């Protein structure tokens, strides 16, 4: 039956077309990556230089700052910021997918009274403009001492990703064939066995898609990170914005190097899980 929805095939001609279109689309990103390898004069040269002698100076200065006296170089905190970004986004999205999956299973298999109302309220919390809650959250974090630590921002990002995880994962559960679960129950499988042994394996691709979507949305979050992270927990987008306001104007080479480095992890995660991403989208929105 699955064959019925199989997409057609095309040859290398389509590849060539996709390459041209893709390259045009990718060009602004490509230019950022090229800028990362340029010296300062090359970065702002007119006419723009497509060919130049590449340098790794920008990448070096992401991690080491040479003091004005010259030879001594001092490590910047960017290693920490990269760690923070990976740790905070990864953990928060993982937590959200786990908590969201439990809730989604309940909403799908054990509907509460007023199920749809709950789901609607949950979705609304995702849709609201962040600016409404930022002042109360800021005050709340200051009072409870959560500001500047890992726990606060982790919880906040988890909360951010829960609504959307519930909705997506619920749609996967809804599409499973309940007869398989009933058959497992008849054979004496406990509810836990049905959940972990029967349901979860069937929606793994969907869970991977949910994780990637959440990661893309969380990876780059700026406003809350700016207000709620401290020196120890600062994430890369915040650190990047802080390098903007220099007395000599923005150092585009340095910025480009940060953007390029910051793109690498999310790019590879998306690339590895791309098939799941496409299948997940399909799974979640297309009724069989």
């Amino acid at each position, binding site marked *: 039956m699955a064959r*019925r929805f*199989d*997409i057609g095939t*095309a*040859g*290398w001609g*389509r*590849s060539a077309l996709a*390459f041209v279109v893709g390259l045009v689309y*990718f060009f*602004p*990103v490509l*230019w*950022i990556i090229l800028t990362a390898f340029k010296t300062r004069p090359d970065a702002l040269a*007119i*006419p*723009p230089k497509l060919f130049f002698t590449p340098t790794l100076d920008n990448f070096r200065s992401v991690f080491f700052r040479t003091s004005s006296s010259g030879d001594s170089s001092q490590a910047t905190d960017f290693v920490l910021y990269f760690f923070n970004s990976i740790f905070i986004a990864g953990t928060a999205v993982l937590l959200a997918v786990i*908590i969201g999956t*439990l*809730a989604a299973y*309940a*909403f799908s298999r*054990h509907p509460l009274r007023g199920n749809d109302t*709950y789901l*609607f309220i949950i979705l*609304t919390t995702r*849709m*609201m*403009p*962040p*600016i*409404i*809650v*930022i*002042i*109360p959250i800021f005050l*709340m974090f200051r009072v409870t001492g959560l500001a500047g630590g890992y726990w606060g921002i982790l*919880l906040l990002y*988890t*909360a951010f990703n829960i609504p959307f995880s*519930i909705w997506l994962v619920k749609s996967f559960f809804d599409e499973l064939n309940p007869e398989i679960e009933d058959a497992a129950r008849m054979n004496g499988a406990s*509810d836990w066995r049905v959940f972990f042994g029967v349901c979860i394996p069937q929606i793994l691709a969907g869970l991977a898609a949910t994780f990637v979507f959440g990661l*893309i949305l969380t990876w*780059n979050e*700026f406003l809350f990170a700016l207000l709620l992270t401290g020196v120890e927990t600062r994430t890369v987008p915040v650190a*990047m914005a802080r390098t903007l306001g220099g007395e000599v104007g*923005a150092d*585009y080479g340095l*910025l*480009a190097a940060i*953007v390029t480095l910051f*793109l690498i992890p999310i*790019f590879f995660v*998306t*690339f590895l899980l*791309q098939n799941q991403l*496409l299948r997940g*989208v399909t799974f979640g*929105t297309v*009724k069989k």
Partner: protein
Amino acid sequence: MTRTTPAAEREGFLAWLGAPERRGPLLVAPAIAVLFVMNIFPLLWSFGLSFFNYRANRQREPDFVGLRNFERVLTDDDVWERFQTTALIVGSSVLLQLVVGFLLAMLFARQFPLRRLLMMLVLTPMMLSFVSVGVFFKLYYEPTFGLLSWFVNLFHDGSFALLATPEGALAGIILADAWMWSPFVMLLVLAGLVSVPKYLYEAAEIDRASAWRRFRTITFPYIKSLLLLAVLFRTIETFKIFDIIYIITEGGPGTATETIAVNVYRLAFQNFRTSQSTALGYIILFIVIVLTNLYLYSVNRRTQEAI
């Protein structure tokens, strides 16, 4: 009544907790708890604030002013202007995302060599942060060093300064936003295209239906509701557009690109009219809830259609 040992009590509690009728609430509880602390409670707090004349930079006890904040916000001509700007940006950007996303989806709706790798070229903009897109698009638009300005000046002699005119600044914002989010629309449309049963195309081929007719009678009905989903989702998200505008134009020139979210930010963090900003925030939330309802309505209709 007999006294129970602590162990038995715990067992009793666990048994009570494990009862089948409590399974639903139990599984939902962690999600609700996190959402309550981090979203719903702050939301109610700021709802309360919107009835006071609270200012974040003052120590004074705030006074209760009732609906005055809402009244002031709703009767402010500037606010209506910001709503119009927002509507313009949302409308144009979502339309552009829809067209570009749809065309990209058509391109990738076949299996071809290197498809997986080539699709990454298109998906990457979505993975950039608003800060980096903002900073570098601002550079591309810059009259002297900008890549786009240089390119345009090759053909049209003179000084091209996109962000100097209101129309240009709007176009610049819309271009950056649409570039970033068209891939998202592409993913949704791809999902719809994949769902079209192949035999319908085979039947159309036997009938020698034209390409346009095939699209209108087979493809479009299948992707219609997904397109609607994409429109609503992107509308809701673009409605809140803030970071990218703040970096590229700061709302200028003048107030040409100042959207409602930028306005809320200014009220809250530059003018310190905290309560007024939460009142305006609630009006935005109301609009978003209306849009969300439309979104859900379309989702439900899609599900019913499919059954």
